[in-house]
């Protein structure tokens, strides 16, 4: 049985798994980018008391392995509160939390380190506030954060496979189940690897291209 045979025989299951993975990723990416950026902005613009808890929690999360955090939310926390939550939502929540704090760290770093001299130049040359934000700050900050953000989102796509460990029917779990039926690990996991390469390599390549393209122009020296 070839990879193609497996894909053609089991494509409905693969498509279901793929759609679950994509849904999971859309939630993780969307919430991470939106809430993470908002958190970073709040940390910079608002008083210290607003930004500090976010930084503290981010620091705390950095010390907890993701899988422990995921299992902790899936088993003990639900047992403690005597609730049963769909594993998909538990996984989506856990990975979103990890992603949004990582996004917040990247965005906060870029905002914090933004060279003030470019804003001074904007002031003394009479740029409007809108021009300063949209023509100077935003393009420079986007150049700074886009490559690490893209790499982070690819890493989150990889990390979404952990959801299979709490029985979320995403693509890796589907592959495992098919393998349990027909035992063709080489073909099945090769197909899975090719799928991830096809999705992740272009994004990684784009991130690296952005990094080399834009950081070249950022140095004033």
């Amino acid at each position, binding site marked *: 049985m070839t990879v193609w045979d497996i894909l053609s025989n089991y494509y409905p299951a693969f498509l279901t798994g793929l759609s679950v993975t994509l849904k999971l990723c859309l939630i993780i990416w969307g919430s991470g980018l939106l809430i993470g950026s908002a958190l970073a902005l709040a940390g910079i613009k608002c008083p210290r008391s607003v930004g500090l808890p976010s930084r503290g929690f981010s620091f705390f999360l950095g010390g907890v392995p993701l899988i422990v955090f995921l299992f902790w939310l899936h088993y003990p926390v639900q047992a403690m509160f005597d609730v049963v939550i769909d594993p998909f939502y538990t996984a989506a929540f856990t990975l979103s939390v990890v992603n949004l704090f990582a996004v917040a760290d990247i965005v906060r770093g870029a905002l914090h380190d933004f060279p003030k*001299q*470019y804003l*001074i*130049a*904007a*002031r*003394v*040359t*009479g*740029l*409007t506030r809108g*021009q300063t934000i949209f*023509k*100077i700050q935003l*393009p*420079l900050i986007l*150049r700074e954060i886009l490559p690490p953000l893209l790499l982070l989102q690819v890493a989150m796509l990889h990390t979404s496979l952990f959801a299979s460990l709490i029985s979320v029917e995403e693509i890796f779990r589907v592959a495992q189940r098919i393998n349990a039926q027909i035992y063709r690990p080489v073909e099945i996991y090769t197909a899975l690897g090719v799928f991830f390469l096809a999705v992740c390599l272009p994004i990684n390549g784009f991130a690296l291209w952005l990094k080399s393209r*834009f950081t*070249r*122009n*950022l*140095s*004033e*020296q």
Partner: protein
Amino acid sequence: MLSARNIHKSYQDRVILNGVDVDIAPGQISCVIGPSGTGKTTLLRVLCQLEKEDAGEILVDGEQNTAPWPKVTAVFQSLFLWPHLTLRENIMLPARNHNPQADKDIEGLIKLFEMNHFIDHYPNQSSIGQRQRVALARALILNPKYVLLDEITSALDVEQTARILTKLTHLKERGIGVFLITHHLGFAKRAADQIIFMSDGKVTEQGPPAILQTPTTERLKQFMSLAEIGA
């Protein structure tokens, strides 16, 4: 006239400016000289309202104005060119707000500053001397009335410095008031209409360039004698 009246400025407990009075007249070059750390750059930043004075007042043509840009504009030692824009875009972005003839004027500035072979480069693809000229052009295309320049020739060689300083005398002819912090005493002697000597956060002596030959205060005498040794 751009005037500073009895300006005081401190950072925490450290007094930087201690009752400074200066006037910068349109069509004149005022050169500020003095030892490092005497508040020259702070005075420039207060004059163009980038820093708020603790006491005293800044008057632009007799009026208080907390946002006088780009009528009063500045070029700093580090230039602050926006790195994601080409040199041409660096000049044109602010120019479009303030100069309806910007598209025409930039061509004149490209000629004046001999920038035609690098104007479409990015800042990091250009030499310091080239960026220096662009920073000046970015300020001038805004048709400012007063230009404040902070040691803009400090990183240039003798030839480039001479070229930039010659261009400054053109500004004077256009009626622009130039406030120039410089260590080039030779230029100050030749081109300045007014010398402002600062030490310890105060204007210790000011007057025509002749004061450099015949200083009246001990501090300027001492500075000039040390400057001769250093020259």
